[in-house]
């Protein structure tokens, strides 16, 4: 900022921004608050101060052990993202540094594969998974999530790579680097911010994928989306329990998102935005 800003201006802007931010955050905040209420309290009407009981968490944990679902969520989201990166980095490299007339079309085609409604292909996929023995397997689902997110990964990486001057890669080539070394030692480290945010975004997307993860799993591979599905409409008063389950389901990704917020934001610009 080249100029001094009046305190008054800053105060007003701060107040407005905080109010809006809190409004946007409110549903999440209220869920967390409610999770520390008893069921009776939860239904009593609006109240921001909970009694602080953790009985809902205990009950949720007793009903469906949290850890196994959590672990599956981590494995599936991280696994599929890493796999997608391994496949997408070479492709993005090609598109960015050896583009052809068709590069743009290929990219757009890749993105368009995401437009097929999942339900329409559930049966074919289910049959394929059944015959491949992939139902309820982490591997099958990891591959599935990888495929779902691959177009976005390729696209994001492509836009980052395009920002990297080609001369540097040529310099590496002149310096005797093989393609592999070029990608490992030069391209990847230079694209770290972009790759990091691609990773984060895709972990989030994979974590929150709630169609296939519920329909292709039973127990062994079931992640937190399946966990929440067992709480979504049980009998009786359930606000506190639902809130506790919801909080548990979103907390890991929320916390990860908060901590990596800077990386994520930097990456969300898709290179092209600037």
């Amino acid at each position, binding site marked *: *900022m080249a100029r001094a800003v009046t305190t008054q*201006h*800053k105060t007003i*802007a*701060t107040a*407005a*921004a905080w109010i*809006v*931010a*809190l409004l*946007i*955050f*409110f*549903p*999440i905040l*209220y*869920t967390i608050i*409610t999770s520390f209420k008893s069921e009776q309290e939860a239904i009593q*009407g609006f109240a921001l101060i909970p009694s602080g009981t953790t009985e809902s968490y205990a009950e949720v944990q007793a009903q469906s052990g949290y850890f196994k679902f959590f672990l599956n969520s981590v494995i599936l989201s991280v696994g599929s993202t890493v796999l997608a990166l391994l496949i*997408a980095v070479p*492709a993005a490299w*090609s*598109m960015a*540094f*050896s583009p052809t007339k068709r590069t743009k079309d*290929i990219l*757009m085609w*890749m*993105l368009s*594969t*995401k*437009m*097929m*409604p*999942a*339900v*329409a*292909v*559930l049966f*074919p996929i289910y049959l394929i998974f059944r015959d491949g023995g992939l139902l309820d397997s982490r591997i099958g689902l990891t591959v599935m999530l990888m*495929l779902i997110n*691959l177009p*976005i990964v390729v696209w994001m990486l492509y836009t980052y790579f395009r920002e990297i001057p080609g001369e540097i890669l040529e310099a590496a080539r002149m310096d005797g680097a093989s*393609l592999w070394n070029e990608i490992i030692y030069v391209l990847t480290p230079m694209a770290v911010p972009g790759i990091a945010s691609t990773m984060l975004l895709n972990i*989030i997307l994979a974590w*929150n994928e709630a*169609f296939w993860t519920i329909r292709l799993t039973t127990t062994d591979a079931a992640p937190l989306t399946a966990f929440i599905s067992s709480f979504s409409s049980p009998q009786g008063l359930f606000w506190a329990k*639902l*809130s506790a389950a*919801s909080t548990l389901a*979103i907390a890991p990704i929320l916390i990860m*998102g*908060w901590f990596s*917020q800077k990386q*994520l*934001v*930097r990456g*969300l610009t898709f290179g092209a*935005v*600037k």
Partner: protein
Amino acid sequence: MATQQTRSLARFMMAPSVILLFIWMIVPLAFTLWFSFQQYNPLNPIRDGFVGFSNYALFYSNPAFLQSILNTLAIVVSVLVITVIGGILLALLLDQPIWGQGFVRILVISPFFVMPPVAALVWKNMIMHPQYGVFADIARFFGANPIDWFGQHPLTAVILIVAWQWLPFATLILLTSLQSLDTEQKEAAEMDGAGFLSRFWYLTLPHMSRAITVVILIQTIFLLSIYAEILVTTNGGPGYASTNLPFLVYQKALLEFKIGQASAGGVIAVILANIVAFFVMRAVGKNLDK
């Protein structure tokens, strides 16, 4: 520009992605096309066989069909409008010097991390519920009658929830774009006597146009297939008021197990998506080339 060697290497390195995605697209699509001409209901396996276009005819004659297409478009367009305009306003606000910017950003980005079923559950039960929801509490506090969101304004309710989920995404991309605007340019415009509005209109908005297209492109892809939010909140109703195309296909596939019709619906959805994609990508592609 590169050597033949790097070019062929490039082809080779693109191959895994392209082949995988091609298989991922073509195999289910082929199945879906095939099923769409079959009478296939796993609950009633006796009646199988080729039925020509009758699945399409049945899907088309479904009274929910036309409305579901309109609803699909309504959701996409409304959410885009809300998130882009809201995102611009929020970005402008967050671009001001404020205390605790980092924390504010964390709060604003948070809804993006919430998985769709949870978001829908929270909004349905704790925010919009006509008895226990916070909106109802507020309405009663002011002596008004609580709004029965899912009964009276189901599509609006779904749009609101989805918009809440995607607003952070739009805001952040637009904010980053805004922050990359050259300060000197702004100051030059100020020296030229441009007021806030004209600066916004002639300087800021054109600068953000690329970011806006990115937001539109990415969101369109996801908004076309919105489904969990509807399933959790309104179940497509009342009537067909909040049924969109993916949800209608869902009903056919997983409620009625009319795989033939669901596949026909899927094919129609793919066609619709491609029409939308065609226009969006045309616009976006042009903008991205700049």
